[in-house]
Each structure stands twice: as C-alpha cells, then as structure tokens.
C-alpha cells in the first residue's frame, strides 16, 4: 500500500503547488511577452510554474523518502492570536487606541492556558496607557486616544 512517509514534505508540496496554481489563475491575463522583452506576466508565470514543479516534486518524493511528522497544533492559541490582530484592525479607527489596546491585550492573553484574570487586567491597563504614551505623546502618531465612529 502506498503511504505518505514524510507528512511535512507532502503538505508543503501541496501548499506550494496550490499557491502556484492560484497565482497562475489570478495572473492569467497578464501579458507575458518573450524573454528578450519581458511583459508584466513573464516572471510571475515562470515563478508559478517553478512553484508547481517543486511542489509536485516534494509531494511525490514524500511517498518514497521518510521525514519528520507534523507537530501537533493547538487550536486555542492560534485562534486567539489571530482574533486579537483582527479585533485590533476592526477597533482602532472606531474606538481609538486606548480601548482597542485594552481589549486586544485581553484577547491575546487568552491564547495562553495559564492566563489569570487579575494579572491580565492589570497588564491590559498598563499596555493601554503605555501605548498611548509611546505612540501618541512621544511619537506623535496620528491616532485618537478614544473616539466613537461607528
């Protein structure tokens, strides 16, 4: 029976090939030209085929050569880290820096299973004050401390 002997290589190969195919499709209308007179599509297309080729090679090879497995992934940290970034993007212009950092720090802290509420609340208040001080007062970035634009 055929078996994947190197899961890392197998999935990495598929990912590379998939990105190559997707980029090829997105860029299907870019004019390629010839090597002497490269159009905007020449290099992207060449790179995509390179990715697809290497990806296929990696995946096919992973049936023959064994390699390390993929380490287990936890859902909680990854979910809260990404959520924290997205929440920052959604709140910074609507509510301003201070409330946004406050909320984002708490969400980020939830990523660790060792999180403690009182400690986190203190950290959030401190981070919120520190970032206002640093970015708005010291670096005079154009951000509101707090605002309400929905």
């Amino acid at each position, binding site marked *: 029976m055929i078996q994947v002997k190197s899961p890392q290589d197998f999935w990495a190969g598929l*990912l590379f090939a998939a990105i190559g195919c997707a980029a090829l499709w997105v860029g299907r209308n870019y004019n390629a030209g010839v090597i002497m007179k490269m159009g905007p599509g020449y290099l992207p297309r060449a790179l995509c085929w390179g*990715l697809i080729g290497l990806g296929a090679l990696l995946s096919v090879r992973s049936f023959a050569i064994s390699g390390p497995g*993929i380490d287990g*992934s936890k859902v909680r940290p990854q979910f809260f*880290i990404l959520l*924290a970034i997205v929440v920052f993007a959604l709140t910074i212009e609507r509510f301003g820096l201070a409330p946004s950092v406050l909320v984002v*720090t708490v969400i980020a802290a939830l990523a660790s299973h060792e999180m403690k509420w009182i400690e986190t609340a203190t950290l959030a208040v401190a981070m919120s004050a520190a*970032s206002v001080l640093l970015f708005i007062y010291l670096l005079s970035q154009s951000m509101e401390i707090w605002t309400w634009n929905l």
Partner: protein
Amino acid sequence: MDVFQNLATGFFAAATPINLLFCLFGCLIGTLIGVLPGIGPIATIAMLLPITFGLSPLGALIMLAGIYYGAQYGGSTTAILLRLPGESSSVVTCIDGYQMALRGRAGAALGIAAVGSFFAGCVGTVLIAAFAPILASFAEQFRSPEYFALMLFGLLAAVILANGSVIKAIAMVILGLLFGLVGTESQSGTARFTFGVPELYDGIDFVPVAMGLFGFAEIMINLDRKEGVRAITARITSLMPTREEIRRALPAALRGTSVGALLGILPGGGAVLSSFAAYTLEKKISKVPAEFGQGAVEGVAAPESANNAGAQTSFIPLLTLGIPSTPVMAIMMGAMTIQGIAPGTAIISDRPELFWGMIASMWIGNLMLVVINLPLIGIWVKLLRVPYRLLFPCILVLCCVGAYSISSSTFLVMLMAGFALLGYIFSKLGCEGAPFLLGFVLGPLMEENFRRSMVLSFGDPMIFVQRPISLTILVASLGLVLLIVLPQFRSTREVAFQE
C-alpha cells in the same frame, strides 16, 4: 590616511548626545531581546521600525543596528547561564558555555564572551571602514547585468545556508519572489495580484510581512509548546578568567573573528553560520578535542567572537552594493528606504556623514555593550523570570500598533494576520522564513535589473556572459548549484546542521 579622516567624520556625527542615546537605547533593547528567548532580532527590528519613523535617518539606523548586535551579546548570556540560546547565533555557545557554568566558571565564560565579542566588533568596524569604500568604488562599474548576477548568487547562497530541505528552501525563495512582485508593474503599469486593493498598488509593505512571518509565527509556535520552567543553576562570582583561560581564549577569539568576518560578508552568511563554522574549526584544530562539550574555553571564545564579527561585516554588502545578504539586513534596507536613503554605491559619496556615522556608532555600541552590560547581567537574568504569558501580549500589541502606524491603514494589520497564519503553517511544515524574506525583497529588484540588462543588450541574453564581472559571479553561482546537487556536499551540510 583617508580612513582615519573618514572615521573622524563618523565619530563626530555619531557622538552627538542624542545619537549616543539612540545607540544606548538600541543596545539595551537588543540585549533584552537577546536575553528573552522566543523573540528574535528580525521580529524586534521590524516591530520597532515604525518607532524610528520620526527620528533622523542616522539616529534610526544607529538604533536599529544597536538592536542587532546587542542581541548577539544578550543571547550568549542566557546560553551560558541557562543553556537556553536567546538567539540562534548563540546556539553553539550553549554547549561549552553551560558546561563552564556548571563547573563554577560562569563568570569567566561571560567575561570571555563579552570581551571576545568586543574585540571582534572592533575588528569588524575597522574592516568595514577599510574595505567598504574600496568595494563601493569597484561596484561603481556594476551595471544591471552584474546586479542581477549578484542577486542570483545571493539567493542561491541563502538556499544553501537555509536549515533543512534544499527543495523547500528554493520553493520559499520563489514564493518570496512572487509576493515581491505584487503591485503595479513599473513598465506597463499593469497592476499585478492587487485584487483591486489600493493599498497593494505600491507593493506589499515590508513591515507586516516581517512581523507576521517572524514575530507572530514565533509566538504561535511557542504557544503550541508547553512552557518550560527556567531555572538558574549557575552563580556568578567573578567575571575575571584565569590566566590559563585567557591563554586558551585569545587565539580562539582571533580565529573566530577571522572566520566570522569572512563569512559575514558572504550573502546568506551572517552571525548564525559564523558561530557554527568557528566552533567546528576550533574542535578540528584543537589538541584536546575531547574537551569540547565539557566546558572548553575555546568553545565559548571562538563562536562568540565569530557571531559578532559576522554581524558586523554582513553590513558590507548592504552598504556598498545595496543588496541585503541576510533577513536582518533586508529589514535594515527597509528602514533605509523608509528614511529616503537608497542603499548602494552612492551612499558613501552622497551621504558620508550617514555612512561613517553608522560605522562609528557600531564601535561605540560595542564599547557600551561591554561597559554597561557586564555589570547589568544580574538584571537581565532577573528579566527571564517574566513569564511568557505576560510577554507575548505586549509583543502582539506593539506589532499591531506599529503596523497600523506605518500608513494609518487597517488593511496592513489584516495583511499581517494573514502572514502570521502563513508563517505558522510554513514553520509547522518545516519551511524557513528567511529565504522567503530575501526573495521578497530582491524580487522586484531582480526583475528590474534583468529587464534593464535586456534593454542594454537589445534583447541579447548573452550580455550576462560577455561582461567579465557578471560572468565571474555567474560561474560562482553555478558553483553553488553544483554544491547543492553534489551528494558529498549534501551529506556534509546535513552533518553541519545537526551538530
């Protein structure tokens, strides 16, 4: 001598109170980062990049460079005391440094590492001062074909030096090149891979990519693991090594410095490779190789000198050719571009105070690190007790606000989240971010230089082999390809990375 006059200009520019303050600040932050595992210099420099926007160009560069070599110092501290490399460049120092600490020689090991680094830093500074102008005037003959060939060489070197599978490294370079092409194409004005998003017309901003791939992916990987308890076993009594230790450390530091200085110049080299190579060399030529791994003084002196020398000389390709050789240099290039400075041959003649000021600041920074940091070791070690659960939310907030402040755009923050996920997936699949970042930075430059070469030669691709310099570089690149393909070398490469 011109060199001394130039260095005097540099010291004059760098030694203003405000620039000294930036230098100190950079060194302190760098050491802090170096001490704390789980956040590397790439992520830190990217994180602090937005903070430097308001500074003068020289001040910004001085601070960022300070972070880089400060991190080398800090990394060795934890490597020796805790067997915990704060930076990848101090991984080898763990082996013998920690053994020395167990035998009660922690202070001596720290002292040797610091003084060795300082010595290497001085040599590195002199080397840059002496050779950078020569290289730059030589590089004035370079035209597009030479630049294209050089970049190709750099990318190939990055592939060889990447940890792990060569195929994956090549694929990561290609992927980086592809992402580098996003934006409006210069000649026809075609918008490539922009999906109609206006923020992408000028290309993907460098900072969110670096923060996502290095900063966030690191955090996410760290959170997957169980948090270890950091116990400090060693007590520091005196930083003075014994006479016997000095006798053994001195030649090792000299050799380490030469190895590091040489490898640092090579594309893809830098601090990490330098320290590995220096350690291997010491073990090979030692009369008592069995002592390595048991607390050999040479095993601390050589790699610590090498990584600092390498960190220093890796600035040479960036400052003279405008080609970043390592991811850290790619970020420095980003910082220069943001400050409106085009790195390259013209920088020495057009902005001498900037160029020489930066070099002078490297020496000042190294001095600061020895004088200020050695007494502070106790404080740095205490900082290690700050649990990671408090540390990473701070990093995350700094990155988010930093990414937003680049151009007050929430799109960049979202983009950063995307690259964080991508970086996390890639490191789970054993693909390194470093080749991607180099490809990303060099992609548009390579396309531009290739196209210009074609214009220069009226569409004749033979131009690359007709010009002697470009031919030489291409032959060297071919040599690198052979190295990748040849089986003997591949096995030594694997051994080298396992050690």
